């Protein structure tokens, strides 16, 4: 979800710095981002995926000069994910063509191991020609209020981005979910159990007891 245009979609977190923050925020931000900057997929290696930070709206730039990262009290960056995919049907078609030719030349079909080796060779060859699919996901962080927005819709990506952000900036991200906000109130445990009168049905009691054991586990943790 682009931070700079279109409709707004984000998941909300509060940043909790672990340890002391550098005094020079601009240099600290640049250094942190550079350490986890995006590096393209090396086609000679086996990895089909690469991820890291790039500048917002300039997904090929990783200089992170302060004027491209700090906007007023906000830190802005993009998480770039590249995926390299060799289409299965293309591999299959090339493999079938090879098997046909093999059969004509050798008066018999290729052995299973030969077929497997040939498939690996075709995949490697096609991989050298393939272009990665690129996606970027923006992150905003108000360095004064500590509110962090991950401008992503999918739950899986939110989790991945959250972990990456924590590693990059040595912070803990606390989700601003109903449960987390309620927990910060320090209200007596029983007060926040589900309201049976609203849930209806005889399952309300079961939900209540599960919520109680859930809360107990959380407090133990």
């Amino acid at each position: 979800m682009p931070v700079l245009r279109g409709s707004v979609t984000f998941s909300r977190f509060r940043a909790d710095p672990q340890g002391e923050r550098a005094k020079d925020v601009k240099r600290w931000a640049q250094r942190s981002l550079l350490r986890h900057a995006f590096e393209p997929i090396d086609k000679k290696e086996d990895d089909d995926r690469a991820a890291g930070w790039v500048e917002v709206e300039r997904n090929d730039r990783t200089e992170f000069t302060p004027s491209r990262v700090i906007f007023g009290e906000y830190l802005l960056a993009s998480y770039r994910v590249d995926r390299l995919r060799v289409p299965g049907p293309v591999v299959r078609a090339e493999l079938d063509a090879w098997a046909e030719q093999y059969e004509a030349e050798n008066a018999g079909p290729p052995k299973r191991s030969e077929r497997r080796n040939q498939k690996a060779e075709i995949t490697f060859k096609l991989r050298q020609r393939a272009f990665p699919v690129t996606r970027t996901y923006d992150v905003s962080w108000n360095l004064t209020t500590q509110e962090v927005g991950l401008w992503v819709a999918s739950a899986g990506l939110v989790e991945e981005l959250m972990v990456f952000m924590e590693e990059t900036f040595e912070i803990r991200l606390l989700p601003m979910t109903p449960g987390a906000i309620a927990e910060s109130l320090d209200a007596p445990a029983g007060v926040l159990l589900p309201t049976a009168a609203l849930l209806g049905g005889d399952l309300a009691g079961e939900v209540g007891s599960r919520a109680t054991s859930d809360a107990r586990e959380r407090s133990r943790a």
Partner: protein
Amino acid sequence: MKKSAASTDAAFARGEVGVDGQAIEEAPDEIELEKNKVTEELVRGRTYLGREFLTWLLWRSNQAESLAAVDNEPVSALFVGRIVLRGLAGEATELVVKGAMSPYSAIVRRALGDGLLVHVARLRIQHGDKIYEATVDAEQLAVRGAKIPKVLSEEDDDKITERLFLAERLSTIVEALFSRFLEVRVSKKWAGAVEELKGWFAEAPSR
């Protein structure tokens, strides 16, 4: 023939079939599985609080002009368009209703009275003279597909900070509404509010 007898023996040894070759355990009950799933979903991260909040907000938005204040400016909300209700058990565990004023419709209130709660809703929020629109879900309180007020700055960098400020302001407003709900939720007023809510559900005209 030999192979099938061997596999029956193996199944018997695993306790899957009896001496007559019939399965011992019945297939899992679909209704039971669904109950477990929806209960799990409701308890995870205290999603039920998010659902109670959106349900409370629907009722309050039908009554009051100002629901909270952010920076001394009143906040009011109106539910618009699509609304998703979810419940624990019964014939239906999810109800999706569409239509400009559908969130306040009799069908929604009857469903709420039957134990379903609001899980996802589209809100039009007025804060002072600014209007926001966003889809909010009960599990994360995340903001989806939001429209924020028009950015007025002309310089590029100012445009960026203004847009970010407006997005964060929307987040603050959602949190302020939720905090207002929590104030009531943890107080003695909650029992009375629940009675009033149930009264409002019951007032829905019948078919």
